[in-house]
């Protein structure tokens, strides 16, 4: 059974039950034409107002990741992202001349189906609004854990009106192009039905999840954007460790580690530090102080039992192991584990970071695979950063960002300019005809 929480611009907090996607598809089809008539500038203005409403809503701001979301949705940023993705935002409104009597327009794909992972609730909003900017209809299937957060956020998108070139436009049209739903992820029939409705499938999640959806039947014209499992880590070079900003970098590392209970694909699991005048134990002790300071602001740990068991066992392993070190809080506020094996460790999450010392930051190149998404870096040496970024991205890394920014959603993501994939690039070529 499908539980539908928002359809046709109407919200229902208990969810309306549907057995199949027919009604949902009908509603999206109706909304689709009207959205297509919106100049993209109108959508940007509505999203900008949405961002303002989020910024004013204290309750919603408490949801993890929402303050950054509000910043991300500002007009200036959205315009920047669209330009980066499409080159010229006018492609979304009309045929734009690109050559002698040759024109290009970015037409919507149609219905975009989003399967969202449960670890980052705001991801659903990023995913669906990028698709809306491309004027697509959307079926947004969120996890059980994220329903409330996404519902509360979408509600703020209601009742927005903007004026553009003398006309008034309502956000209702945008909402009419979004169906917010939940159904059991193991329901093969519903997954299959949803998949068959899609002109584009966006899947965020674990290998099990993305594999399952990828195998579902789909239209031959359907485009897949798969954001499967990824791993991220941080690195501090000597110049950063010996700089005056060192402690600030550490605080940023803690912020990256705490966000989303460290379950994001962009959450750091390991920290590599380049040999410097500070030894690894001194480093860890200062990091403890930073964890103590920052975790006071984030008291609600809310760890799952499974994560707790993993942390306790890893702590035990590092405390009892003779060649390993552990710096831990009395509760499970943070766990710092040190050893000298140059490898990536299984993500324990729940504020658990492994620290390993390397002679040179380039030593980590041997660990890079295409599964590595983000490296959060702290360095004062821009040439070194460029050299490092070039090497690691050649080997498979998608993003190298300054420490503290690892979990900030950005474009490109996972090596993909998402909005450029959510349109059909259509051409009109009439050279010499008229």
């Amino acid at each position, binding site marked *: 059974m499908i539980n539908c929480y928002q359809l046709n611009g109407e919200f229902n907090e208990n969810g309306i039950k549907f057995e199949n996607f027919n009604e949902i598809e009908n509603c999206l089809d109706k909304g689709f034409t009207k959205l297509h008539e919106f100049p993209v500038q109108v959508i940007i203005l509505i999203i900008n107002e949405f961002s303002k409403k989020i910024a004013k809503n204290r309750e919603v701001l408490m949801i993890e990741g929402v303050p950054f979301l509000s910043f991300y949705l500002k007009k200036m940023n959205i315009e920047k992202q669209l330009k980066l993705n499409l080159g010229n935002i006018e492609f979304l409104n009309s045929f734009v001349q690109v050559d002698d009597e040759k024109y290009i327009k970015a037409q919507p794909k149609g219905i975009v189906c989003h399967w969202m992972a449960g*670890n980052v609730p705001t991801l659903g909003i990023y995913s669906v609004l990028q698709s809306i900017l491309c004027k697509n209809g959307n079926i947004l299937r969120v996890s059980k854990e994220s329903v409330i957060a996404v519902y509360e956020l979408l509600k703020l998108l209601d009742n927005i009106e903007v004026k553009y070139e003398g006309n008034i436009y309502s956000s209702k049209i945008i909402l009419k192009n979004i169906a917010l739903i939940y159904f059991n992820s193991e329901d093969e029939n519903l997954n299959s039905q949803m998949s068959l409705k899609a002109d584009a499938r966006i899947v965020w999640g674990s290998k099990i999840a993305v594999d399952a959806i990828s195998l579902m039947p789909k239209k031959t014209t359907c485009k897949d954007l798969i954001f499967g499992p990824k791993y991220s880590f941080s690195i501090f070079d000597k110049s950063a460790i010996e700089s005056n900003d060192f402690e600030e970098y550490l605080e940023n590392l803690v912020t990256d580690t705490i966000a989303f209970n460290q379950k994001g694909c962009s959450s750091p699991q390991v920290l590599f530090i380049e040999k410097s005048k500070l030894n690894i134990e001194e480093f860890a002790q200062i990091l403890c102080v930073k964890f103590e300071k920052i975790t006071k602001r984030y008291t609600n740990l809310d760890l799952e039992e499974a994560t707790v068991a993993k942390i306790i066992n890893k702590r035990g392993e590092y405390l009892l192991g003779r060649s390993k070190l552990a710096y831990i809080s009395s509760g499970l506020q943070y766990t710092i584990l040190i050893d000298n094996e140059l490898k990536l460790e299984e993500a324990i999450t729940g504020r658990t970071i492994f620290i390993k010392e390397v002679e040179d930051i380039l030593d980590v190149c041997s660990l890079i695979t295409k599964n590595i998404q983000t490296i959060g870096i702290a360095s004062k040496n821009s040439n070194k950063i460029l050299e490092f970024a070039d090497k690691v991205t050649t080997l498979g890394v998608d993003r190298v960002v300054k420490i503290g920014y690892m979990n900030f959603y950005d474009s490109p993501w996972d090596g993909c300019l998402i909005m450029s994939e959510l349109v059909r690039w259509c051409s009109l070529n009439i050279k010499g005809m008229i």
Partner: protein
Amino acid sequence: MEDLELIDELVLAQQFNIEQKKKEKLLLKIILPQLERNRGNVNIDAMYNKLGIDISSIQTLEQVPYIPVNMFKCFELRICKKEQVVRVLQSSATTTGIPSKIYLDKKTAIRQSQGLVSTLSSFLGSKRRPMLIVDNADSNKKGDSITARGAAIRGISTFASKTFYVMDKEKEELKLNIDKLREFEKKYKDEEILVYGFTYILWSKFLKVLKQEGIKLDIPNLKLLHSGGWKKLISQKVEKKVFSETAAQIFNTSEANVIDFYGMVEQAGVVFIDCQYGHKHVPNFAEIIIRDIQTLKEVKFGSEGLIEVMSILGNSYPSQAILTEDIGEYIGIDDCPCGRRGKYFRFKSRVNKAEIRGCGDTFAEREVGR
């Protein structure tokens, strides 16, 4: 120095009769010197040093450093000399495939048996009686190493005047021998008897088989003790109530005679048996601390957390404080209507190992190749 006399007193004397405050003082007096001795193991010494443990400043049992139960799978946590080991207890290695190894010297093995007898006496009395064991005799074979099942059978057999194994082994599969069972029933149906089996084996190889075959027994004066293996039963959606009802029906006895006890191979000798009010009580020589799963501090009454089991029985391995992967509910202290003193609790479940999986879940899928 360990206070051996005090240990003997706590292990051998009547159980469940010391008030909590006094008990904590007595246990601390024994445990602190034991912790000093634990330092003889290089791994434990490393752990105490890393945690900055000053044993002399420990003032409560809650402050005693605990060892996560899985560490018995990763490290050789032996305190005594190798040549002093008389037996190695091994867990069933269900989840990881690696068994826990618990090294017992003579002293520990004796204390564990004594502790078990003292505890069970409080529930079974001291009379020996015929015992039906729902297992195969191989589980309790003599040797250097013994499984959790074997250890439990051996311990409870202390209360047996005679033992009868009712399961045959066919190509490593346990199969109920109905003839042997009928023979036992015929001989002892009017006597007080004991029945013991591992919960999972009792259910899947015994009760379920008898139920399917429509066989009912008539041995009403029994005490059926069972332990271990709930994880598999919960996955088959068999709840404790259903288990007890089925067992009572098959044996033609009352549900009150079906007794579940909680224990683990890493703390052999320490068992927690349900009293008539459904509470699990802690013997005088042991303790439990239910720790909050976020703060790791002891929870308040009515709250749930990880069960830490403490014991003074270990002379050859660090039994003083072991943090389990079981969830319990802390009910109260000293005031159970059954009259037993000390802490009492309820076993709730094994830790739920299922996690919310998201896009950061690479290693769990072992997908790290290029």
